[in-house]
């Protein structure tokens, strides 16, 4: 079962084999739980939120295009769910336009130096991450802890790839100050 892709499993769920959804839940529950715990900084809210993510993903499973990546799709659902929770808690302001996404940016891309730095920074970052505002906390969580690339993060957050770079760069500067 391990060699079956997520997308093949979704195709089977879509055609009526609902038990295959359990494999998808097992593959992502730990990852999403970590993502939720770090992003929401609230363990109890994280558990309920992840449960809701899987329920919403199942309800909307027929809308998933199996030619695309399932991981980006479920992380996108998770992002929406978590952002809604933060908005309800008033930890995140509602804004229609984010100037980070409005203007084009020229940012250093992902290189081998940065990946090396990633491993060294991980522990320090984990300690300070809850002090970052959600806008900067989320790309850091996805990049450092979910091992996503910039373009994958862009697909989850629906922002330009360069904006992902800008937010990670700013978040790192903020973290340096905090640490």
């Amino acid at each position: 079962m391990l060699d079956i892709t997520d997308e093949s499993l979704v195709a089977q769920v879509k055609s009526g084999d609902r038990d295959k959804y359990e494999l998808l839940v097992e593959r992502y529950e730990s990852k999403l739980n970590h993502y939720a715990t770090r992003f929401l900084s609230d363990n109890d809210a994280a558990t309920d939120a992840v449960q809701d993510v899987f329920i919403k993903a199942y309800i909307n499973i027929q809308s998933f295009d199996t030619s695309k990546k399932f991981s980006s799709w479920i992380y996108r659902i998770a992002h929406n769910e978590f952002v809604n929770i933060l908005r309800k808690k008033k930890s995140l302001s509602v804004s229609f336009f984010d100037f980070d996404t409005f203007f084009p940016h020229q940012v250093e891309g992902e290189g081998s130096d940065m990946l090396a730095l990633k491993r060294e920074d991980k522990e320090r970052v984990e300690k300070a991450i809850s002090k970052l505002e959600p806008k900067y906390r989320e790309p850091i969580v996805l990049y450092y802890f979910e091992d996503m690339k910039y373009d994958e993060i862009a697909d989850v957050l629906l922002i330009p790839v360069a904006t992902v770079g800008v937010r990670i760069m700013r978040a790192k500067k903020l973290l340096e100050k905090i640490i």
Partner: protein
Amino acid sequence: MEKIEQTTREISEKVMSAIRTGGILPHSRWYFIIRNIIYAAFVLVLLLAILYLSSFILFALQASGFTLLSGSKFFGIMTILNSLPWVLLLLVIIGIVSTLLLSRSAAFTYRTPTLYVFLGIIILVIAVSAIVSSFDLHKKIYERGHNFKPIKSLYEGFADPEMHNGIAGEIQSIDDRNIFIITPRNESFEVIVSSSTEIMSSDGLTVNDKVFIQGVRKEKTIMADIVKEINEQERNMLFNKSYDRAPNNPSMQIK
């Protein structure tokens, strides 16, 4: 770490139990097909509304005589503030921003900086509006819909020069101080020319010249700020309430 693993087992059990007992049912494929069709239709209607309004703004600027005043010394901030259809411009901007928000989930929009997408939509809207304007679409809409109150109010409210203290006519006679004109609707006006009136004519005004007058009207007299000589093409661009009804003055007839 152990706690997280235990939690995830609970999540899996709860979710699968709800699915197996039929407590959670997925939406059908048709639900998403119909939803996408409604969504696409809504975006299309919104885009058509933006294109209609923006092409109408271009039409109104020409038809109201706004563009004729661009070379005048009176053409400044105040003329722009008084003459531009701000309400319509605001509606177009709201429409563009709404389109931007609605199309945010499409990869080609969110991967590109919002500024570029915004400018792209504006360029597209202006280009299509200019093309639409060149086909006299709005004249035809007014011709056919002038008995329908919303059409009448929109076109006469924004495009009629008379709503902006402008009027077009043909010079009937000129005396020492004033000009007498007749409009396409056979109305006669005395145009009072003072020292502050700006005459925009390359070779001086003579009888039978077609002119556009900007100034405050009081009954049958107009205190002229600007008297601009216009050619047949410019005259045809101006709004005329009788586009489809033969005017009494054949020389002013819109073709």
